């Protein structure tokens, strides 16, 4: 696998990631295709659907090695999110049609979970789907709005939680629908995040017609799919590999930045900050492996992953914060064009200065998205602590 990462992944891709450059759609498609060629793309899937049959630990190691090697990340919406839901709840027809298209990149999926004003309360679904029949057959008419749709600008398909029974209690009456993004009545609008990037979107649905064949599982039972998706094998939620890669970069920066005539890495205060987070990360690696082992042994995946998510995101945010600190006065200048791989304008400040602050600010999202760390603590209090 290391040979693959070293030799078969184009240097262009790895350089982009290492240097904090923007990845475009083609980059991700190339990476997915490379992995699919090896049979490693859908590494969470059972072998009968094309998975490699890895253990949880093997998956963990694979994803960490990729991160450390600065590969792009797998865009998870199709492979890691929808795939498992279809495998568990989809009809055979749905599995046979959609799963291969996830693997070969025919579809780029995005996620229609969050709604404006709902935040981490995913069950607060107000987007409606009303069942009807017309000349073309059974269908749903969908109206409403989804938000925080990551990379939705690249997607041709979206899986959505929609409300199919308005009378039912909150978590009942929700259904899980697959919707073609090119359907009439869908509008996608970018959300610009605080550092100026376009990564997330709003998606508006106005009388969008969805064939009822695109319902996954039973009507009004979509919450089961949602919950399953949220807790499915989140072995890498702590992002240990990404933190290792980020820490390596931080160390390089700190070794090459000087303060009082010596490397910043030798400044007592900065060295202490780096050492603290390095130790926390070393501990986290083991915590992560322990939790994977516990889950394999019949633990509590939901609550365990809450623990990994909180501390994992805190560690990564701290590393990115230190990388920003290391830039000194050069943390402020910020030219979006310099995030492009082919930028050939002037570079100022230490290596990586062009992206350090942007990554720091962008990754404040880590403790918010995917269930805020506060929600995760609520889960821990209830599920593990019994409070």
């Amino acid at each position: 696998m290391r040979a693959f990462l070293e030799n078969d992944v184009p240097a262009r891709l790895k350089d982009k990631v290492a240097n904090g450059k923007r990845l475009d759609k083609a980059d991700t498609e190339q990476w997915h295709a490379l992995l699919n060629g090896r049979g490693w793309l859908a590494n969470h899937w059972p072998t009968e659907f094309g998975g490699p049959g890895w253990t949880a630990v093997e998956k963990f190691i694979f994803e960490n090695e990729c991160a450390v090697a600065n590969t792009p990340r797998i865009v998870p919406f199709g492979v890691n999110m929808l795939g498992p839901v279809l495998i568990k709840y989809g009809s055979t027809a749905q599995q046979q049609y959609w799963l291969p298209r996830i693997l070969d990149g025919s579809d780029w999926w995005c996620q229609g979970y969050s709604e404006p004003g709902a935040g981490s309360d995913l069950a607060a679904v107000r987007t409606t789907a009303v069942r009807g029949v017309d000349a073309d057959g059974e269908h749903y008419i969908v109206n409403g709005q989804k938000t925080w749709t990551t990379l939705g600008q690249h997607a041709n398909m979206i899986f959505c939680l929609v409300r199919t029974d308005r009378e039912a209690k909150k978590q009942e009456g929700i259904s899980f629908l697959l919707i073609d993004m090119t359907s009439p009545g869908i509008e996608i609008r970018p959300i610009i995040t605080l550092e100026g990037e376009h990564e997330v979107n709003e998606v508006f649905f106005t009388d969008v017609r969805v064939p009822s064949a695109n319902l996954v599982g039973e009507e009004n039972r979509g919450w089961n799919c949602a919950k399953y998706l949220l807790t499915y094998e989140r072995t890498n939620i702590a992002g240990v590999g990404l933190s290792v890669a980020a820490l390596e970069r931080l160390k390089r920066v700190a070794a090459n930045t000087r303060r009082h005539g010596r490397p910043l890495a030798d400044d007592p205060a900065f060295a202490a900050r780096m050492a603290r987070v390095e130790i926390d990360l070393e501990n986290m690696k083991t915590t992560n492996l322990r939790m994977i082992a516990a889950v394999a042994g019949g633990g509590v995946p939901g609550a365990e992953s809450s623990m990994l998510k909180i501390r994992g995101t805190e560690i990564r945010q701290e590393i990115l914060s230190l990388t920003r600190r290391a830039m000194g006065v050069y943390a402020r200048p910020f030219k979006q064009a310099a995030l492009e791989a082919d930028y050939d304008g002037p570079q100022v400040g230490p290596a990586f200065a062009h992206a350090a602050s942007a990554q720091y600010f962008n990754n404040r999202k880590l403790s918010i998205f995917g269930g805020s760390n506060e929600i995760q603590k609520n889960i821990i209090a209830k599920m593990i602590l019994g409070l």
Partner: protein
Amino acid sequence: MNFEHTEERRMLADTLDRFVAQQYGFEVRNRIAASSRGFSPDMWGQFAELGVIGALFGEDDGGFGGAGFDIAVVFESLGRGLVLEPLLGSAVLAGSAIAHAGSNDQKAQLAGIIDGSVIATLAHDEPDTHYELARVQTTARRDGEGWVLDGAKAVVPHGEHANLFVISARTVGAVDDERGISLFLVPAGVAGLSVLGMPTMDGGRVAELRLDGVRLDAHALLGEEGGGYATLEHAVGRGVLALCAEAVGAMEAAKAATLDYLRTRKQFGVPIGSFQALQHRMADLLLEIEQARSAVINAAAALDAPRIARERALSAAKTSIGRIGTLVAEECIQLHGGIGMTWELPLAHYAKRLVMIDHQLGDEDHHLERYITLGRVAA
């Protein structure tokens, strides 16, 4: 002990607050931030007319303020409004340096700074200084009656659009020696001075300067040859106070926005401000902000104190603000959730400014170390 400001200061603050609220709203501000100048000449003129620049100078220098609390009042107000105009670089940093060390002829420039017609800036940081005040690699060597400067200056506030630079250069001594630093008044456009402007993460623009054999006449020397450190410390100290006060203004705005959000935003059917865990975090934040405000008051009060007391109070304030500003930024984003991550929300821009203030004139770690070192000198 009286923590009320004088009548004049309160009036100025009220005027400024009103002006900023009415004329420098979020949309206007963001347009200015993204503009090719990074500030607004029109607004700048209006700030000058309001007397905001003059309030930062003493009467001897043609102003009507200049005390620590004048700086604090003005910059807290600027921070509340996320104002991008070149008050720090022109009035506080360059202006203070000229007022501190300038000859009568040089001080004549202050009138232009105060009325807004001259935009000055301080070019002192260099690519490798990492906040060390005495580390100056740019050199100045005598050339007949005059001087020749060579070197580079980093992240100079609104450097593209300044008419007048105060530039530090080493005339003698080791690279980090406090002695041997000289200051020069350099007009924009002088031969050999190249300026590379760029936008910043928190709005507005900065510039990299290169000096390749910049020839200056004898009158360009500001203060005594080799004696520029004290002037730098004076000017940067006032800049530190200004940034700290600006941060407190931004913290108050961020806190108010977050409290408002906590009171109105509902989740699971209730305002999220009713969740005790969030309440306790906001209570902590409130305490921190009150401590930050006290740090600014201490620094403002110490601005005319003997050197060690003054500089320790300034470093205490900047290290406090560095830590607390970043905490406030991160917590306010977190408490807002996803919406706090978006460009369209003013809070996100307050947060960016708060974090970036820690990267100007010395960060939390730099000033904590400096506070300790100064204490050892005192002991």
